[in-house]
């Protein structure tokens, strides 16, 4: 089976019914989609399939054969942040960070589909994504800022040479 993940064609060997989530995480070692519930209930595993947000835990990999899969790694990098990544940073929209990648991917689809800065529309579009830390306010702030086309001064940065993580820098 072939998948195109973040623009790169990858051959995968996982069984056809394997959830896309585990193909990405365990076979391709793309770890930004998180196994938050494996019930389709939290949105931490959301990725883009041909530009549409999908719960990767509910998606048998065989059903997306030939599709373009995009994870947050495909939107931008630490060296070159996508506008939503800048906005989430600027607005402190991430606390523990576990829901963040799914949020950003879903927000990306919202913006790409012409979503505006109306808070209720944003809340409706991302209504299935659970965040337990932030109370959502700053997440909505960040998405609205991108919808408005705000630009962000990120010259003031935290040390980027070291990202303390479980097990050290990646």
């Amino acid at each position: 089976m072939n998948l195109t993940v973040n623009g790169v064609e990858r051959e995968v060997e996982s069984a056809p019914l394997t959830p896309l989530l585990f193909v990405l995480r365990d076979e391709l070692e793309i770890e930004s989609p998180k196994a938050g519930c494996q019930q389709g209930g939290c949105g931490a595993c959301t990725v883009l399939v041909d530009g549409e947000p999908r719960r990767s835990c509910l998606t048998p990999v065989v059903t997306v054969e030939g599709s373009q899969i995009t994870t947050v790694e495909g939107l931008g990098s630490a060296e070159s942040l996508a506008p939503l990544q800048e906005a989430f940073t600027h607005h402190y929209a991430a606390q523990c960070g576990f829901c963040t990648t799914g949020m950003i991917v879903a927000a990306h689809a919202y913006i790409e589909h012409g979503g505006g800065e109306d808070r209720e529309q944003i809340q409706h579009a991302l209504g299935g994504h659970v965040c337990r830390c932030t109370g959502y306010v700053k997440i909505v702030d960040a998405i609205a800022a991108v919808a408005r086309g705000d630009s962000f001064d990120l010259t003031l940065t935290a040390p980027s040479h070291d990202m303390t993580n479980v097990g050290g820098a990646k």
Partner: protein
Amino acid sequence: MATHKGRGVSAIEYPTGMNQNGDPSQAWIKIKPDGRVDVFAGTSDIGNGSKTIQSQIVAETLGVPYDWVTYDNSNTDSSPVCTGTFASRATFVAGMAVKKAAEKARERILEIASKELEIDPADLDVADGEVFAKGSPQKKISVADVAAAATWTYGELITGTGAQLKPYAEIVDPETGRVDLPPHSAISYAACAAEVEVDDETGQVTVTRLVSCFDVGRAINPTLVEGQIEGGAVQGLGLGVLENCYPYYPSVEHRGAQFGSYLAPGMEDLPKLETLIIENPSADGPYGAKGIGEMANNPQPPAIAAAVYDAVGVWVTELPITPERVLRALEAKAEPRREGKLVSFDEELSVNAIGGGALRFEVSA
């Protein structure tokens, strides 16, 4: 069908640090040859932002830019004791430990700068990565050069260690609960107003607005403080109207094991949140800070309960205030029992009537 609006208020307090104290946190710092700073602490960042807060405290104390600080809490081999990230202690207690460590390192920086500048350390200050003479800031040396001198000239490693421990407050009289020492490190305060709409036919309570005011002592990072308060408010909303492990408590039947049936608040439940911060510094906290992470979900449930009463005239005193509980209360329309000077709201729940007489909770009217 009618939708009724109501408003309620509450005011609360909460201790910072473990109750009765006795919970140490420690940190150590080393300075690299170019003045960059490595902080080692054992405080887990659970999203609360303790990596950021503690790095800010170190930057402030040492007088170096924030992005000079590298913070490592990744393992117990390199980091010293931290009792943990709970009890609102990551800023207050653990933050104090890194501050003390930074103060020690700062002393060493000034001592070495003193040798280089030939000025008494007491007459030196440090800011923005430079050590300078108080009153004549043109006499200066960068922290980078101080660190280089320590390494290459004096053969020294600039370090600092810090530990914070408030002694355990013993309960000296278990009959009265009296303690021999203050059992808290600091107390934080908050007040809250909730506005709700209640559908009197379905019992549905919609929280439309939560206004919170917190005394945070000192906001080390105001945006992170707001994040704690906003996150807490939405958890308070969950406590108030949504979440319940046992929908038929005390029965254990029908526990939800899915996000579809355990109602953690979602984005569409979000009321209008307004956050006010006041700063009444704590004498014991780093730069006056108190810890408010935990209490952030405490004031909403009682404010919501009062707002529901204001809206439809019934007190729902079991949480969460589910549509069913509102409807049951509306059906019962219970008036408190008045007898002499006693006004008793909740007879039927009282353990007076149960417990086989083992517990007595008597109120003389």
